[in-house]
């Protein structure tokens, strides 16, 4: 049983993974490659298949089709206890009948490695819980249990560490703190982390690469900044934050810019930031990239200008104000203005114009639902 495990992380590759449950397909033709040592996040709403994917990698579910390659070796047929993969479970799943130390030592004992207790103590020291080694898990707080679960998995130095919504049960403040710790530990140990979450902030904050999952497939994969700045589908645009969307027929397109007509107004984006340049397309912009003006801005081919419209709602969120601006014939737009001391002073009911730079537009490959279309 004493299999030799590599101390460093290994790459994980999923090839054409499909998982059917009676009556529905949870994961469909999933392809994914995670380089060794990377912090990778699978992000998606509940029911998108992200947890099923994680369970297939852990061996707790078997794929209906496809290959799971870890360091180039197909592990799809291996039992969970034969895989050099460890999991931090959603509700920690600490063994209630064992002390914290015995929990952490469990994997080492199973593999019959030497010094299980001193290894467990070291792992507990890494998460700063060595003083609680003799306690029972149920005597610890949620944050402490989470750290024990992490130590119990990390002590085995798996090629791949799976994290199943590990921070979901913690309160906001503790969650932020654990995010920082988790990231620091990952950098320190250099293992490959696969983190499953529905919290987009968490995924963007920690992961090197994020894959957004929806209905069993990956919508888009990339660095968090890229996903946020340049979403390719309406689902990704919506899941990673708010956006203003406009759907219209393409009226002109060249190598530089592409424009649509939306309710008589021209809305322009860069062609290279557009997935589609023919027919009816959707163009969006993030609310923090839009500005409002009390006087009409001077027309500029580098700007999209809409308005005037009335401010119908102002929401103070601390770092920024969120404005709802109802532009007749266009609809309601959202604008975020940073509270840096020089934002225009406006009140409810004020008439304002909205603008944004054309290079901040993004063109989607599909059409969002629930947005009025102009044909």
């Amino acid at each position, binding site marked *: *049983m004493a299999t030799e495990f590599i101390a460093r992380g290994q790459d994980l590759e999923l090839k054409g993974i499909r998982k059917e449950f009676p009556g529905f397909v949870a994961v469909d033709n999933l392809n994914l490659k995670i380089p060794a040592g990377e912090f990778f996040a699978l992000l998606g709403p509940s029911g998108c298949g992200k947890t099923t994917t994680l369970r297939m990698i*852990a*061996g*707790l579910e078997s794929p209906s089709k496809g290959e799971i390659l870890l360091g180039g070796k197909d592990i799809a047929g291996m*039992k*969970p*206890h034969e895989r050099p*993969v*460890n*999991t931090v*479970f*959603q*509700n920690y*799943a*600490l*063994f*209630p*009948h064992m002390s914290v130390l015995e929990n952490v030592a*469990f*994997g080492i004992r*199973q*593999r019959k490695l030497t010094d299980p207790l001193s290894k467990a103590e070291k792992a507990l020291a890494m998460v700063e819980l060595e003083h609680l080694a003799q*306690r*029972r898990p149920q*005597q610890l707080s949620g944050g402490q249990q989470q750290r024990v679960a992490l130590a*119990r*998995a990390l002590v*085995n130095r798996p090629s791949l560490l799976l994290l199943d919504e590990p921070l979901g049960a913690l309160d906001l403040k503790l969650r932020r703190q654990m995010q920082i710790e988790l990231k620091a530990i990952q950098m320190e140990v250099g293992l490959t982390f696969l983190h499953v979450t529905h919290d987009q902030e968490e995924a963007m904050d920690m992961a090197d690469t994020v894959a957004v999952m929806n209905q069993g497939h990956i919508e888009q994969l990339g660095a968090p900044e890229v996903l946020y700045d340049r979403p390719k589908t309406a689902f990704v645009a919506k899941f990673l934050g708010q956006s203003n969307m406009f759907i219209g027929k393409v009226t002109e397109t060249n190598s530089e810019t592409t424009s649509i007509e939306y309710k008589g107004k021209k809305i322009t984006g860069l062609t290279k930031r557009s997935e589609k340049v023919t027919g009816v397309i959707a163009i969006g912009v993030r609310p923090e990239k839009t500005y409002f003006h009390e006087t009409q801005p001077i027309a500029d081919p580098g700007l999209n200008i809409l308005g005037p419209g009335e401010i119908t709602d102002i929401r103070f969120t601390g770092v920024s104000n969120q404005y709802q601006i109802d532009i007749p014939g266009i609809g309601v737009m959202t604008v975020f203005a940073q509270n840096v001391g020089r934002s225009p002073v406006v009140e409810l009911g004020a008439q304002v114009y909205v603008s944004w730079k054309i290079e901040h537009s993004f063109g989607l490959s599909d059409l969002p639902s629930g947005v009025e279309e102009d044909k």
Partner: protein
Amino acid sequence: MTRFSLGKYLLPTYVFLTFLFLMIPIGYTFVYSFNDSIKSNIIWRGFTLDNWLNVCDQAGVCGAFGNSLLVAITATAVSTVLGTMIAIALVRYRFKFRSATNLLLFLPLATPEVVMGAGLAAQFLDFGWTKGLTTVIIAHVMFTLSFVVVTVKARVATLDPALEEAGRDLYASPIQVFWKITFPLLLPGILSAAMLAFALSFDDFIITQFNSGSVDTFPKFVYTAAARGIPPEANVVGSFVFIVAIAIVIAVQVRSAMKKRKLLSK
């Protein structure tokens, strides 16, 4: 105020009377185990320890007691093992006829013992088996099994499957997961199921009467003896069993109270 004080005394009085009613037969049995009786153990003839010291002198008492112990221990062991396995299967695995199995397991709980005893007796006759200890044990396994399944099932239902998955994830094979995680966590449920099975088997009369032939168990012995006067040695055995049972209950309570205090003090 009168109404208030009436309520204040009414409930304690009622509780006291209830306990008195429950305890009188037990108290009577215990007290009369010390009776220096001659023929029948109905009239108090003075205190003696002879019944307790020479309990096996009375013909049949100790043999019947031993048979009851043997039957109860064997039946408990078999039905606890089988019942635990059935309970885990019923909670953890989806299979055809699962709900039907669930329902069928409840049937013995609802069936009158006379019917079950007579039915079994007919079966054994059919098979041509001689009635004796073996048939009694088989019968007891049959009727205690449902109780074990129901008790252990409740415990399995509270067991988070993620704990077993965590075990598998941490390099434990399915068998190791069972012994290191599932079994220790189910143990309290399994023990209470075993105690229940033992208690049910030990004092069963009806099913035993139908299926034991000439073998005497303790309840059977007492029943037969009642016709000509129960010997005080029977009181001794009854009191002894009662004391052991109470001692076990107290020990368990004390242990869990100490455990709780230990957890709190940390």
